[in-house]
């Protein structure tokens, strides 16, 4: 075997292959977060999500009424004491709304994260390994895709309501059901991305450096998919919250638990629309819309963050730079003309 260290010719002896040029001190380094180029859309969506999170998690700590506290009669109209009125059980609508939003967010986080994890795992392994394993995993994915998810969701939700395991009866059980039925799209999309990354030269270099398959997947494939996975996760959150609301509104949600869908379910069951009790169904509808809108807006703004070509303001910056160059050229031309006149 060659002993590199014994036969080394140092750089000092041989001299560098390319002459070193002194480098001018660069501009002051920007903080790392500045390089992410968060646009206005990102700030708006983050602001909305923060406001909803405050309503869901901090609001109940400050609000005087509990969601299971009877404070009035059937559909009492909004008043200074109960600003969103009461629902069909006589509970304060705002207190119920805050508890429902919290549960819906928790459900979305659990289900969205589970679906993303399953989808990423299957997609990355199928895309990177390829061959018969890819065929098998994508075959399973296509089968799951072909089965109508809503039917599976309804059937499993109904069976969960009659289960003896308390853990599965609540919002967690529903989140698990939504998570394990909504991963296939993520898996397909991630597989396509992973199979593209798998053909890049840095993967070959990792193999030649002795990296094992697990290490390559974690260190050489996943970082290249991170932006895509984050965006898929945000979409999964929105989808999971909407799926839970749909099921709950149909009366298949977790019994005895507050959620935005369950609020709508009770409002429909107790004729809120017919009696004109808009405060019973409008607040959960608006919050649901805001959550979905904020998450979808966040997803599209993340696309701008990760894809420099979509960044807003780039055209404006280019136009400004062109204007500065034109101004500099005009001044230079004026100076030259001035000199020529002086010479003449």
């Amino acid at each position, binding site marked *: 075997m*060659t*002993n*590199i260290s014994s036969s*080394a010719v140092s750089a000092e002896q041989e001299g560098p*292959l390319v002459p070193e040029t002194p480098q001018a001190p660069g501009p002051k380094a920007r903080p790392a977060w500045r390089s992410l180029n968060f646009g206005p859309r990102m700030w708006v969506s983050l602001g909305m999500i923060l406001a909803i999170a405050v309503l869901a998690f901090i609001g109940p700590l400050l609000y005087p009424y509990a969601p299971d506290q009877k404070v009035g009669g059937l559909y009492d109209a909004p008043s200074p004491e109960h600003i969103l009125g009461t629902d069909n059980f006589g509970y304060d609508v705002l207190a119920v709304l805050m508890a429902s939003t919290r549960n819906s967010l928790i459900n979305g986080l659990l289900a969205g994260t589970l679906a993303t994890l399953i989808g990423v795992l299957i997609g990355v392994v199928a895309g990177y390994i390829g061959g018969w394993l890819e065929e098998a995993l994508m075959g399973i994915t296509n089968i799951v895709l072909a089965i109508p998810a809503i039917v599976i969701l309804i059937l499993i939700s109904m069976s969960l309501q009659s289960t003896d395991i308390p853990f599965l009866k609540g919002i967690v059980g529903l989140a698990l059901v939504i998570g394990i039925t909504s991963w296939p799209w993520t898996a397909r999309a991630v597989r396509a991305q992973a199979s593209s990354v798998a053909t890049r030269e*840095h993967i070959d270099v990792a193999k*030649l*450096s002795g*990296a094992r398959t697990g290490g390559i997947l974690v260190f050489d494939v996943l970082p290249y998919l991170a932006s895509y996975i984050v965006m898929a996760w945000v979409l999964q959150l929105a989808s999971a919250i909407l799926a839970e609301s749909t099921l709950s509104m149909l009366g298949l949600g977790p019994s005895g638990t507050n959620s935005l869908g369950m609020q709508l379910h009770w409002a429909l069951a107790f004729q809120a629309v017919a009696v004109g009790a808009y405060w019973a169904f409008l607040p959960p509808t608006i919050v649901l819309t805001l959550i979905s809108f904020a998450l979808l807006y966040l997803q599209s703004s993340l696309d701008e963050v990760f894809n420099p070509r979509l960044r807003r303001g780039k055209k404006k910056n280019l136009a400004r730079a062109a204007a500065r160059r034109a101004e500099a050229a005009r001044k230079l031309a004026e100076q030259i003309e001035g000199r020529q006149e002086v010479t003449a």
Partner: protein
Amino acid sequence: MRDSTDSGVPVLAASHVTKQFRVAGGHLTAVDDVSVEFHAGKVLAVVGESGSGKSTLARMLLRLMPVTSGTITYQGKDVTHIRGGELRSYWRDVQAVFQDPFASFNQFFTIGHTLRRGMRAEKLEGDTLDALIETCLGYVGLKPGDAVHKYPHQLSGGQRQRVMIARALMMNPKVLLADEATSMLDASLRVSALNVMQDLRDNLGLTVLFITHDIGQACYFADEVVVMEHGLIVERGTTDEVIFTPKHDYTKRLLSDVPDLKGSLKVRKD
């Protein structure tokens, strides 16, 4: 220093290797029944235009791509179907430098991380590892301070390619495959990269497979030249034979496409 005496047994050899890709409506033969041998301490250049199958041949030799048929032997041992630990051991001995000096790096990690990665299996750490990095970077005219803490995008194309050569050297290989390793470098850096590889052959006795579409570069430092066209070897011989007495029309055309070859040939003859 490596013993570069050629005992007659090839270090690496491909025997009747064929590679076919499935395409719509049939198969595309990228490499067709190619046999080639690499002897210790020699530089073999594989020359051909884009699509001639030279990179596919290199990837099969590297075991980064399975062969459709044929055999690859390393030091007389069949390595065509080895896997797992055996394959990783093979990759320690047979290293490569690829065409795109930016795509070869994982952009998320520093140069130091890329260099250290190959040494994990060796359990080299601390000062020993730092000294090895310094030595290997020194071979390619870089100092650790120039590169180790930087990310790939902070280096020039030439520096990145030299770091890639240093990475390959850290593995202490017996064979180095340079797949169009100079084609994305500008002219001055190209010569320095070629000189680095020539030094490695001269000082370390490294066997080099140099893949290029530029026959002029091949003539610059190769001992033997193989010319490929449409997946077939159309001509092979010592560099002098191929340059001065080309037999195949394709080789003659490649030679005539080199703008300043006549001057180089004159210098070489002298």
